[in-house]
C-alpha cells in the first residue's frame, strides 16, 4: 500500500468571495440533519417552496447520519402498552419536571407515523428477512423488534444506517432545494431589529466562500445543540465531543443574536463522552443503550449479577428486559444521569463501588458469549452495526481484527455506558440540555421562526428529531402559506457579509483551534462544577475580552478554515449564553446538575420553574415559565393539529 501524500496543492474549488447569491423560498430549513430533513419533507408536501441549508452533506450529515439502532418512544405503534400521555408524563417526571412536555408529546404521538414514512422512503424498520424469528423481542405479526422494556414495547430496534440516505432521497423527490456545504451564519430580522420577525438568513459556502442571502416567509432552526464549550482538543478537534465536529450549536448563537428565548441553558453535566477522553462509543463492554442487557464478568470470569431497582438479583436473563413486579415501565438508566428516579429505574448491574466491596475484581468485561444467541446477534451485528458510528469503526474494524462475539470477552472502561472518566469541570451539554423555548406550533418567541430536534430545550433522540422536524415543517408551511414576504434589510445582510469576510483578513496571529482552547479553559475555570456570582461574572468579563480583543485576531486561509473560524465565534457566543443563564438561576438544583456555592439550597420551591433568557436591545433579559407550561398534552396537541389528525384518520 503506497502513501498518498501530497505536499502542497492548489485550492480545488473556484473561489467566489466576491459573489453574493440571492435565494428566495417560502420555507427555509437551517440544518439538514434528522430534524431538518423531516421538516423539509413535511413542508414540501404542503406544496410550498422549500430550501434546505446544510453545512456538511445531507446524505449522511448530523449526529444521526451514520446510523441509529433504537427508536425511542414510539408509543402509538400497535404493540405498545403505554399511551403517549403516560409515556410523556413519565419522561417529565423522570427528569424532575425539567423536560420539554410539548416536544416529547409530539415524539410519543407521531414518532411511529415517521417510522412508517421511513419505510415508504426505503428505510428498514422491521425484520423483513426473518433473522430474529421467534425471538422474545420480536412481534411475529408486525416483525417489529423491540429494545429494553419488552413488556411495554415503546422502543424499537431499527436499521438506522438506511435512514439518512432515504430522507435525502425523499427531499430531492419532493423538489426540496438542497444547499449542501453552506454554513448558515446569521438570521435576518425585519428592519434588522433584534426581537423582530425573522425574514431570512445568511450563509457562506465552505468550499467556494460564496455568500448567500436567503429570503423566506418562515424559517426552521434544526442545527442541534452547542458543543466544545468545555471540551476541546486542538490537535484532534474532530473527536472533541460526542457529536460531529461541525455541529457547534451555530443555531443557538444566531438565535441568541436575533433575540430568541432560551431555557435550561444553565444545565450542564459532567462529561459523558469525548473521543479524546474515552474509548469509542458502543465499542466497549457495558450494560447500557446498544449493549443492553449484556452479561458482565469480572477479571476472574466471575459473573456479575443483574439486579432490579430494589437490589434483588435477577436469575433469568429475560427479567432484565421487564419492569419490576408492580412497576408500570422503566427507562434505561432511570431518567436523569446519576440521579435515577425509583419509579422508572430499570434493571442494571450494581454500581462499581459496591461490586468492588463485594470482592469483584477489575477489569470487568462484557460477555456476549453467555447471551442467548438471538440477544447476542441483536447486540453484535444489529445494534452494533446499525447504531451511529458503529458499522465501520466498530463492527468492521473489530471483526477484521479478529473479535468474535462467540469467543471473546470485551473490556469495560467506565460506568453505565461511559467508556472513560471525566473531571467535574469537564462538562458537556448532554442528555436533555437547554435550548430554544417552543410553543405548541414549535414556534419560537420570534415571528416566522420555528425550531426542531436537538435545538429545542430538553430534547434528544432520533425519533424526537424526526417527529418534531416534521411537525415544525408543516406548521411553518401553514404559516408561510398565509404570510407575505418581508424585505431583507440590506444593511443587516451587508454587515454580516463584512463580519464573515473580516476573518480572512485577520492579523494571522490566531488559529481557530487556539481560540476554542482558550474558551474551554475559561469555562472550565469559571463555569465548572461549582458556580458563584463572582466566578460567573469574572468569566463573563474575560469572555467579553476574548470577544473584543482576541477573536478579531483569528485568521482563516481558505473557505474551509473560514467555516471553522465562524464556528468558534459561535462557541464563544454559546459560552456567553451559558454564563448568563447560570447567573440568572440563583438557586442550586440537582436535576439541572447545577451547584451555586452562594445559593447552596437545593430546589427551593420558588425556583422550581424554567428561567428563560434572551437578548433585548442587546441587554440580557430574564424571565420565567412554569415547568408545566405545556398545559393539557392531549388537548393542546389535538387543537393544534386538526388537519394532521384528519389526514391520518383516513
Amino acid at each position: 500500500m503506497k502513501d498518498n501524500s501530497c505536499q502542497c496543492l492548489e485550492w480545488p474549488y473556484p473561489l467566489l468571495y466576491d459573489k453574493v447569491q440571492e435565494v428566495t423560498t417560502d420555507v427555509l430549513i437551517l440544518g439538514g440533519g434528522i430534524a431538518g430533513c423531516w421538516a423539509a419533507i413535511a413542508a414540501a408536501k404542503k406544496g410550498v417552496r422549500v430550501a434546505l441549508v446544510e453545512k456538511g452533506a445531507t446524505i449522511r450529515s448530523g449526529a444521526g447520519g451514520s446510523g441509529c439502532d433504537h427508536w425511542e418512544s414510539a408509543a402509538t405503534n400497535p404493540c405498545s402498552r403505554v399511551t403517549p400521555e403516560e409515556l410523556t408524563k413519565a419522561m417529565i417526571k423522570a427528569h424532575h419536571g425539567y423536560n420539554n412536555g410539548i416536544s416529547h408529546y409530539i415524539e410519543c404521538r407521531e414518532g411511529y407515523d415517521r417510522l412508517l414514512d421511513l419505510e415508504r422512503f426505503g428505510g428498514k424498520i422491521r425484520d423483513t428477512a426473518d433473522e430474529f424469528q421467534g425471538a422474545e423481542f420480536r412481534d411475529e405479526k408486525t416483525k417489529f423488534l423491540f429494545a429494553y422494556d419488552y413488556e411495554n414495547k415503546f422502543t424499537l430496534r431499527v436499521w438506522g444506517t438506511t435512514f439518512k440516505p432515504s430522507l435525502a432521497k425523499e427531499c430531492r423527490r419532493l423538489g426540496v432545494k438542497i444547499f449542501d456545504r453552506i454554513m448558515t451564519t446569521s438570521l435576518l430580522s425585519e428592519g434588522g431589529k433584534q426581537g423582530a420577525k425573522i425574514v431570512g438568513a445568511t450563509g457562506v459556502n465552505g468550499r467556494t466562500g460564496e455568500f448567500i442571502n436567503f429570503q423566506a416567509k418562515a424559517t426552521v432552526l434544526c442545527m442541534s445543540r452547542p458543543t466544545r464549550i468545555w471540551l476541546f482538543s486542538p490537535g484532534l478537534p474532530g473527536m472533541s465531543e460526542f457529536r460531529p465536529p461541525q455541529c457547534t450549536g451555530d443555531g443557538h448563537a444566531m438565535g441568541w443574536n436575533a433575540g430568541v428565548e432560551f431555557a435550561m441553558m444553565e444545565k450542564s453535566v459532567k462529561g459523558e463522552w469525548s473521543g479524546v477522553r474515552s474509548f469509542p462509543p458502543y465499542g466497549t463492554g457495558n450494560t447500557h443503550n446498544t449493549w443492553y442487557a449484556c452479561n458482565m464478568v469480572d477479571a476472574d470470569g466471575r459473573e456479575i449479577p443483574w439486579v432490579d431497582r430494589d437490589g434483588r438479583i435477577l436469575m433469568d436473563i429475560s427479567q432484565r428486559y421487564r419492569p419490576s413486579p408492580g412497576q408500570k415501565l422503566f427507562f434505561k438508566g432511570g431518567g436523569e444521569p446519576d440521579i435515577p428516579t425509583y419509579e422508572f429505574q430499570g434493571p442494571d448491574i450494581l454500581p462499581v463501588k459496591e461490586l468492588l466491596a463485594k470482592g469483584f475484581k477489575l477489569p470487568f468485561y462484557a460477555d456476549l458469549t453467555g447471551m442467548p444467541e438471538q440477544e447476542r446477534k441483536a447486540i453484535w451485528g444489529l445494534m452494533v452495526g446499525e447504531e451511529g458510528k458503529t458499522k465501520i469503526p466498530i463492527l468492521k474494524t473489530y471483526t477484521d481484527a479478529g473479535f468474535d462475539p462467540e469467543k471473546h470477552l470485551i473490556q469495560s472502561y467506565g460506568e453505565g455506558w461511559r467508556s472513560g472518566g471525566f473531571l467535574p469541570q469537564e462538562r458537556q451539554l448532554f442528555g436533555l440540555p437547554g435550548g430554544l423555548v417552543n410553543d405548541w406550533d414549535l414556534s419560537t418567541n420570534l415571528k416566522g421562526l420555528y425550531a426542531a430536534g436537538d435545538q429545542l430545550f430538553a430534547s434528544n433522540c432520533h425519533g424526537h428529531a424526526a417527529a418534531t422536524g416534521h411537525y415544525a415543517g408543516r406548521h411553518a408551511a401553514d404559516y408561510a402559506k398565509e404570510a407575505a414576504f418581508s424585505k431583507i434589510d440590506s444593511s443587516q445582510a451587508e454587515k454580516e457579509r463584512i463580519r464573515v469576510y473580516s476573518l480572512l483578513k485577520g492579523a494571522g496571529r490566531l488559529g481557530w483551534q487556539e481560540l476554542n482552547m482558550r474558551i474551554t479553559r475559561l469555562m472550565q475555570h469559571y463555569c465548572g462544577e461549582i458556580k458563584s456570582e463572582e466566578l460567573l461574572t469574572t468569566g463573563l468579563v474575560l469572555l467579553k475580552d476574548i470577544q473584543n480583543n482576541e477573536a478579531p485576531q483569528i485568521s482563516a486561509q481558505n473557505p474551509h478554515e473560514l467555516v471553522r473560524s465562524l464556528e468558534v465565534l459561535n462557541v464563544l457566543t454559546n459560552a456567553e449564553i451559558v454564563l448568563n443563564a447560570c447567573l440568572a438561576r440563583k438557586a442550586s438544583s440537582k436535576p439541572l446538575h447545577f451547584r451555586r456555592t452562594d445559593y447552596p439550597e437545593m430546589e427551593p420551591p420558588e425556583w422550581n420553574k424554567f428561567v428563560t433568557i434572551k437578548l433585548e436591545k442587546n441587554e440580557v433579559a430574564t424571565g420565567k415559565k412554569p415547568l408545566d407550561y405545556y398545559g393539557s398534552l392531549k388537548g393542546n396537541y389535538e387543537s393544534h393539529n386538526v388537519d394532521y389528525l384528519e389526514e391520518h384518520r383516513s
Partner: protein
Amino acid sequence: MKGKKIFIHPETAALKPLTFNTEICDGCNMCVEVCQVDLLVPHPNKGKPPVVVYPGECWYGGCCVAICPKPGAIKLNTPLMNRVHWKEKT
C-alpha cells in the same frame, strides 16, 4: 480577492485517520462528497485517491468507507489510544 490563487498544505495531525490503497482506489471522490466535516479534497491528478487535508478534524464515523464502491480502497484507522482490549473466554 477574485482570481487569486490559494494553496493548501495538508496538515499533519497527531493521528492518521485514513489510509488509501492506490492500487484499488480510482479517485471517484465519493468519499470526499459524503464527508460531513469536508476534510478531504480531490487529488489534483484525476484518478488518484483524495488528499486528507485536515486529518485532525475526522469524526471517525466511517461514512467515507461505507460509501466507497471499491472494497479495500479506503481504510479507517482506529486511533491507537482508542484500541479496546478483548480476550478469549476461558
